């Protein structure tokens, strides 16, 4: 098991919202929890994954996510059971879509 942390800056602030959870901690799958992190200006990501040694790939997948959605003042927490980068991206996009709904914004 491995724990990884990333931080991104320069996104748009959503204001307050109820935490959003998508996905399930099952084989080849992951869960993503997005919570508010007010006035930080950050999109921080904490990952616990059963697969060790994939830090560089996580960094790339998350950088793509940040470029697509550009969220700020949020904290992402991830529990991963060996999901592929494609599945990770899918879950992150699902979480962002739900987040926009939860925050009352456009999907």
């Amino acid at each position, binding site marked *: *098991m491995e724990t990884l942390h990333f931080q991104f800056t320069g996104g748009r602030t959503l204001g307050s919202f109820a935490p959003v959870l998508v996905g*399930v*901690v099952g084989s080849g*799958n992951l*869960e993503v929890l997005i919570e508010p992190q007010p006035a930080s200006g950050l999109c921080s990501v904490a990952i*616990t994954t059963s697969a060790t040694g994939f830090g560089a790939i996580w960094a790339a997948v998350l950088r793509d996510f940040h470029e697509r959605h550009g969220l700020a003042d949020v904290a992402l927490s991830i*529990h991963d*059971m060996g999901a592929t980068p494609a599945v990770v991206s899918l879950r992150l996009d699902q979480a962002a879509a739900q987040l926009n709904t939860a925050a009352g914004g456009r999907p």
Partner: protein
Amino acid sequence: MNRSFAEASARERIAHLLDAGSFREILGPAERVMSPHLAQLDTPAAFDDGVAIGRGLLQGQPVLVAAQEGGFMGGGVGEVHGAKLVGLFKLALSDRPQAVLVLAESGGVRLHEANAGLIGISEVMRALLDVRHAGIPVLMLIGGAKGCFGGMGLVARCADHVVMSDLARLAMSGPEVIESSHGVEEFDSKDLALVWRTTGGKHRFLTGDCDVLVEDDIGAFRAAAGAALGRTRPVTLESLADEHALLAGRLAHFGECHDAREIWSRLGLANAAQVTELDTAALRALKSTLVPSPSPASAGETNLHTPSPTSAGGAASWPLLLDRLFAGQHSVHHEGELLRGTAQIQGRTLAIVGTTDHAAIGVELALAQARVVLDTVRNHPGRPLLLLVDTQGQRLRHRDELLGINRYMAHLGCCIELARRSGHRVIGLVYDQALSGGFITSGLIADACYALPEAQIRVMRLPAMARVTKIDEKRLEALSLSNPVFAPGVQNYVAMGGVRALWHGDLQGDLQAELLMALDHTPIIDERARDGAARGGRQLAAQVIARVAAA
């Protein structure tokens, strides 16, 4: 539009089952009430420990709801997961909803925290029966792809109503477990048609183990749950006597059947072979035309399996135990693997019921023990019950699953619960070994369970656990020295609160003193989670239960 129940996640099921937007989760994912045990086994935890619980509305009526996530560890019940369910049932006692809905999808006990899960399941059963006693119906909605097995199969048959889809399964032991124990000729787990006609929704519906059969559609589950709101089935001596007669009759009528199709045929289905091809509406229509078969009161009950040649009594430890406990003042005898009789201590008469020879608890043995408990409640009000536990677990046979062994074992548990409510003290004593499911509906459902120091208690041996969890056996061994949560051993069960105390003592008087103490001072309310916290073995369960109950 149909929305598949099986393919939805636990949260999606809740969202579409309840009135739109009405769900208010308790201890939601952001609270991070997670398993404290998985990290040391290198396994990621889940934010909700695999079960979402909370309040909501169904057809405008207030309900409490729990949904197990089969995708996380197969829906397995660990310390936190079990405690959330227990807490929800306790909350129901003050909330008084129109129903508690349990969307069950679980393989049973989570092996990574096996001891906590086993005790937790029995706590769930007791808490559930408290809710039924309070006149609040408990509904089991079973429609997940993983089915409802093991301890959750027992919990399901403790509820008022069971709703299943034809995709769902309800059973005790999984087909893989039975196959690995007795070979492919006993139960071919790869023969999916066989698996479904033995444990699937249609079979359970035809035999009556599920009350309502629905399509794999969340809307259909919603309609079935709505129809059951406020409808209770009280647990009384009469209702359990009826249940007993039904189960005895089932054994008499179908005990010799080797396949579900034989049972369907004997039920009067002219074309039993076609049942699997019918849709649920056609099957419901067909069932309504069947005449219920008569259930002779005592048929099927005398057919206790004869003892195996090795169990002639020579090595059995129960005669010596009873001599030490009662100094010859007892009439306990064995009928096969069943122990029954009465005993005297200081002028008080106890009813004794239990098993010997490491009995595998099959349908007959579960029913025979239930008979003793029911007879005691009926004929000897207030007489204390002593449950003597020596079991290798539930019997791992295709036939038992075909007959619905989880319902037979749950019946035994309900009878013990009835005895407690009727003013009988119920003391469990593990005098030899207590394994997995066989322990849940005996010692673990007593007021409290005690054990001899030399007894063995476990869910599974470490080598088997290593295979299932894919964790190195040496690692498990090393961890088991410091953590009582999964390793075998009576001391671990004491630390977790599942065993109230060990009965030490070499002298006759010592054991007698322990029994008298237990009879006079065992609490009637379930204090095991509190004990587990005080003793350091289960540090989270008690506080999770309390937080949910006060939500």
